[in-house]
């Protein structure tokens, strides 16, 4: 606390020549040269008012009289300007590096890059504007049918999922409880292990492979601004066959009349990394000839506990942007660089979790013509904030001698895992006919 007071006072007194006496926390004007404060650089805290930079005024016709020949500073004479000295060779310890303007990939026009650490201010709204998409709350009915289908369930599903959660949340460490950075990826791998066991029943599930640490690159223009999606995004489940489009042609045509939501006065480029040195690259992360070219599901983790963690709306925006980036790269490979409406829309799923809350997104890319805000839009189905369980406590929470939350796993919701499993099975398994009949 004392440090905060010191810092605030120092910031307030910046450039005034006053400093703060740390012992008594009072502002004093004192001789700062004698006081050496080793914990921070003096320039950082304004202990000395920076000297006023005087611009050299060039008046044509008038000769500037400088103290260059005297070789010492004289109060009335101007400071001489010498030509820049070139060493003649590149000393790596004294090399400031090339300036942005001198780099070969420098462009005047800025490009706004979305990477894995970007947290958009306007969240889902901004992501929808950037990807020219229409939002539909809830998952598409094909996936919901599959979730309610009793045939596509694991044996002892509830018991096994609760065991998987308990392993991740309680049993996986020698300490009392594992940290979120540990239990979040372990929970995801346990749930995927359970889902994979169903490939005994549905052999087409084995035509898939997981890829981690791959980098995607995709670029597009939206209303005269250039945007890019770049970098490592998460764990990708690739498959040999693409996902079938989820919305009918009529629904796709109906998006033409939808108006994208803007958030004036905030610019749509907010929170995106502005770069002038860039390459307009379209890359799926995999070379040509890869046996599993179609992206099926992207799993994004939010394992951090500190300020670096993603809020739900930021995580949902990240899911939408990376799903869009992956699909756009693949669409450009299939249909070419020209912006156009796709005959067969491309579909991809994204699941994000922080170890307890799951977010589900299904993205359908209908068009690569993204320059104007009119025309056919892409479709996003979003199912937000689905809890897998309410609490996983090592010790019971007791308030006024009443057990409010018991120890162990409580508040387990099987529907969330069924949606997770349905999204895993989607594309390889059709829901059984009786479920469809009961739904319709």
């Amino acid at each position, binding site marked *: 606390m004392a440090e905060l007071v010191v810092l605030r006072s120092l910031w307030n007194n910046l450039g005034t020549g006053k400093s703060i006496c740390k012992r008594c926390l009072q502002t004093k004007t004192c001789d700062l040269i004698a006081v050496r404060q080793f914990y921070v650089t003096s320039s950082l805290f304004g202990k000395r008012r920076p000297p006023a930079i005087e611009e050299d005024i060039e008046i044509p016709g008038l000769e500037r009289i400088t103290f260059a020949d005297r070789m010492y500073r004289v109060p009335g004479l101007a400071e001489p300007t010498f030509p820049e000295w070139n060493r003649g060779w590149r000393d790596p310890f004294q090399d400031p590096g090339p300036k942005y303007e001198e780099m070969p990939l420098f462009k005047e026009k800025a490009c706004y890059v979305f990477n894995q650490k970007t947290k958009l201010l306007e969240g889902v709204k901004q992501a929808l504007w950037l990807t020219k998409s229409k939002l539909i709350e809830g998952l598409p009915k094909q996936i919901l049918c599959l979730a309610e289908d009793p045939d596509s369930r694991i044996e002892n599903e509830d018991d096994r999922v609760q065991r998987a959660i308990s392993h991740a949340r309680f049993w996986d460490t020698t300490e009392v409880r594992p940290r979120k950075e540990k239990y979040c990826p372990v929970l995801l791998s346990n749930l995927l*292990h359970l889902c994979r066991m169903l490939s005994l029943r549905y052999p087409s599930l*084995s035509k898939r*492979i997981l890829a981690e640490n791959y980098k995607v690159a995709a670029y597009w223009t939206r209303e005269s601004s250039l945007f890019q999606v770049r970098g490592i995004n998460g764990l990708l489940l690739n498959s040999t066959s693409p996902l079938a489009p989820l919305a009918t042609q009529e629904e796709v045509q109906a998006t033409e009349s939808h108006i994208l939501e803007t958030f004036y006065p905030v610019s749509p480029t907010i929170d995106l990394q502005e770069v002038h040195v860039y390459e307009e690259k379209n890359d799926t992360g995999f*070379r040509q000839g890869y046996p*599993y070219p179609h992206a099926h599901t992207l799993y994004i983790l939010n394992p951090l506990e500190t300020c670096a963690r993603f809020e739900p709306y930021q995580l949902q925006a990240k899911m939408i942007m990376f799903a869009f980036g992956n699909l756009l790269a693949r669409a450009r490979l299939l249909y070419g660089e020209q912006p156009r409406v796709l005959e067969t829309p491309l579909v991809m799923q994204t699941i994000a979790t922080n170890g307890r809350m799951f977010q589900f997104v299904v993205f359908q890319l209908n068009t690569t013509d993204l320059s104007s805000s009119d025309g056919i839009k892409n479709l996003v189905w979003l199912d937000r904030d689905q809890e897998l369980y309410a609490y996983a406590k090592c010790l019971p929470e007791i308030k006024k001698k009443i057990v409010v939350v018991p120890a162990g796993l409580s508040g387990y919701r099987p529907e969330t895992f069924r949606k997770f499993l349905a999204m895993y099975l989607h594309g390889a398994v059709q829901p059984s006919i009786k479920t469809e009949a009961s739904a319709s």
Partner: protein
Amino acid sequence: MAAFCVRCVGNSKLTNYMQLKQVRILHNEVLAQSPTALSPLYPPILPSLTAKSKAAKQRRRDEYYKKVYAAPSVQEKIRLLTCLQRLKYVVNTQTSAINADRWYQHFTKTAYLSGLPEHFTNSGMDQVAETGDIVTSKALSDPDFEELKSLFCTALLQENFYMRKRTPFLYRTIEHYFSPFLNNAVSALTTLLAAQNPLLKESSLDFKPQVNFYWMRGERVVPRGHRKGSVDPIRFQIDDHPHSQIRVPKQLPEFVPLDYKVPAEVPVIKLEPDRLPLFKRQYDNHIFIGTKVTDPCVYGHTQFHLISDRMHRGRLTKANLEDQIEVRLRANAISSLFAWTGAQAMYQGFWSHEDVTRPFVSQCVITDGKYYSFFCYQLNTLALCVETDCNNPRKNICWGTESMPLYDTVEENDVKGFNDDTLKLLVQFLLYRPKAL
């Protein structure tokens, strides 16, 4: 039995004599007439708990053992055995010490047999036989085997060719190219073989788990300090981080009976462990199989280890240590599997003074992506400390193979020279299960 009056008993020399000779004080004629028919009137005379004497130390040790025997749960038993922190040797599973496998065999009382147990050598892929209590059936049909082979090849090519990757960091090449490949390979194996091996359906697959074990073996006389001259047990700790492991709810059957006469000898090393070199540290003593005791899957099936770049055979060949390639793999297998099986046994309530009543069996595969070595381990005894080891004929057994390549090279988008035998052995390893299933 001699009888003494109460006044004479006050003499300390007499008291000591009485302790040695187990005499009893009688103080009336009724008792003197029929001494054997009655229970003792006074509680047994025991040595002091707090005195600075050998008898008192022995009494303290006995009280401690009584507490451990009487512990109400396994967690409490393990807590009592590991609560006291003392300096201990930290045994690294991936070590650069020369001939570490003989030292590790000595520390863990393991006999090494080259080759795999009879179960893997007798039963081929195409035989249907019932040998004793182990059932071997037609492991994998040809189409399934081809599918597994193609999955392996694709996973290998994905990491080495298809995925665009930057150059790996220093000493992280194997992890960079082969860790994700092994992730996919292990998942594919577990999924495809779950049809034949129902145990794998109930299994739990851990990635980058933690395995710890703490034990005592041998004694040493403290050379200097205020405890100079006192006898201390030598403590060891293994902290292992395999690449992945499969844990199952049912125990794997034994390869050989508990009292099998092992043809190989356990090497005895007279030098102290510091000479290996092994270094001492003091920190929490952990006994951990990868999950806590409350998990239903407390038995181990197979571990997969990825060796570090420092143990890569290319480096060892350049440093004129070609013979050490297999030695290091053996040392890794013995230490990792001893720690895993030992921890599994402790989770069932066994410890050095309550030796195992059934053998604990686990397997491991150590690889650098191209070369695979297969090891099986049977834990027959946990009684390794000096008190319990003096009359213990049992030895732990480790079987192992030399490293065999899975493929020759990866060129562009093609895997050349794929070795089916290595994959078949891998499949056999994962199909090992109890007779009932």
